[in-house]
């Protein structure tokens, strides 16, 4: 009898917690996305740095370059991987895309990269080679927090200036768990965040 009472108590509490979680989902789920977002603004003349991780961010960066023709743009992508176009890597696709979008060829730099950490290293290397003093790192909203930590780590004591910029169109941080693309992105970031932090601390 006591056991039945205990079980019914546990079931009631569990049901209460579940009901609360469902009713107040907007309150407790929203911060998972908003904590990932960092907003900065582009400054004219900055080197624009973008990876081929998503088309939205590439398009946003391309638009920045078009509006600021005096700027330069560094495009980073993995050359080891295949895309739906046979024989073409994400970096090759970015080159084709840059042509289709009529981006000025002399303002573009393409470099091979396999991760955000390599993106940061490649950006720093190029800035030193070409004498750029400041860069705007462009990505998708949910990627910004992790991106900022990694870039700041690589650029520490370099005297180079960094800004972090993202587009907002097409993202739904207030209802991310109901939109598949946003859900995927937010969860992936929360998985990668601790892994990258540990990796930076241990390996550098």
């Amino acid at each position, binding site marked *: 009898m006591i056991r039945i009472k205990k079980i019914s108590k546990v079931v009631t509490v569990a049901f209460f917690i579940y009901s609360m979680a469902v009713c107040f989902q907007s309150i407790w789920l929203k911060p998972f996305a908003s904590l990932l977002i960092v907003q900065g603004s582009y400054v004219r003349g900055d080197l624009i740095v973008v990876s081929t991780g998503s088309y939205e961010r590439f398009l946003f960066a391309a638009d920045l370059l078009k509006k600021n023709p005096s700027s330069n743009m560094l495009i980073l992508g993995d050359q080891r991987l295949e895309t739906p176009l046979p024989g073409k890597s994400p970096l090759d696709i970015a080159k084709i895309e840059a042509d289709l979008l009529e981006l000025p060829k002399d303002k573009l730099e393409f470099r091979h990269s396999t991760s955000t950490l390599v993106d940061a290293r490649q950006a720093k290397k190029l800035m030193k080679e070409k004498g750029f003093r400041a860069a705007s790192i462009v990505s998708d909203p949910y990627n910004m927090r992790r991106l900022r930590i990694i870039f700041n780590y690589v650029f520490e004591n370099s005297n180079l200036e960094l800004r972090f910029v993202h587009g907002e169109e097409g993202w739904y941080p207030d209802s991310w768990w109901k939109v*598949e693309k946003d859900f995927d992105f937010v969860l992936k970031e929360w998985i990668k965040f601790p892994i990258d932090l540990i990796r930076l601390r241990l390996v550098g």
Partner: protein
Amino acid sequence: MKKIYFLIFVVLIAMGYWGAPKIAKQIGAYLIVYDEFENAEYLITNGLSPKTLEYLNMGKVEKILVTVDDDPKGVWKAFYGKNADLKIREKAAKLGIPQEKILIYKKKFVGEIDRITFHKHILASLKAESAVFFDPFYHTRTRRFFLNRYFEGLDIKTYVQYEKHIGMEELKQWWGKTTYANLFLEQYLSMGFYYLNKLLLTRAV
């Protein structure tokens, strides 16, 4: 006692070190589905390839249904150029696929559920009885997962295949390649997304 705890800790670390790659490989392998089939009315794909022609010539499929993600801000133009229809038709001509065998559908897709619902409506409107889906190898389990849930009750036999043959060898170290790691993870998240929205009693988009 402390020595025993330490020993257990060392054994666990060693097991993780030796076992983790095998588990990760299995996680990757689980995502791959390849349904054998005799013949199907429609072959559903995102793009044409020599294998689509081969299936047509062998009589395994009757028509090719190409679905294009028509999102100007979400899909690389490099995949289709500025005119997707024309590019697909040109490719068909190059491969020697008769134009009348190709049906092109365009839509801005917001996710797997949207995509599978769209395919369901097309196949229902065509009164199809069977269809085979061509997908990238890592996406075949996700396709099967959503087909099982959204085609329930319809009298349409569905098969899922990947185009390129991928051996287990290629799955080794998938977690070491950022893009593959992202793609593999996305598949599990897509399935998790379905369950989370069921749990939260919300309508997934």
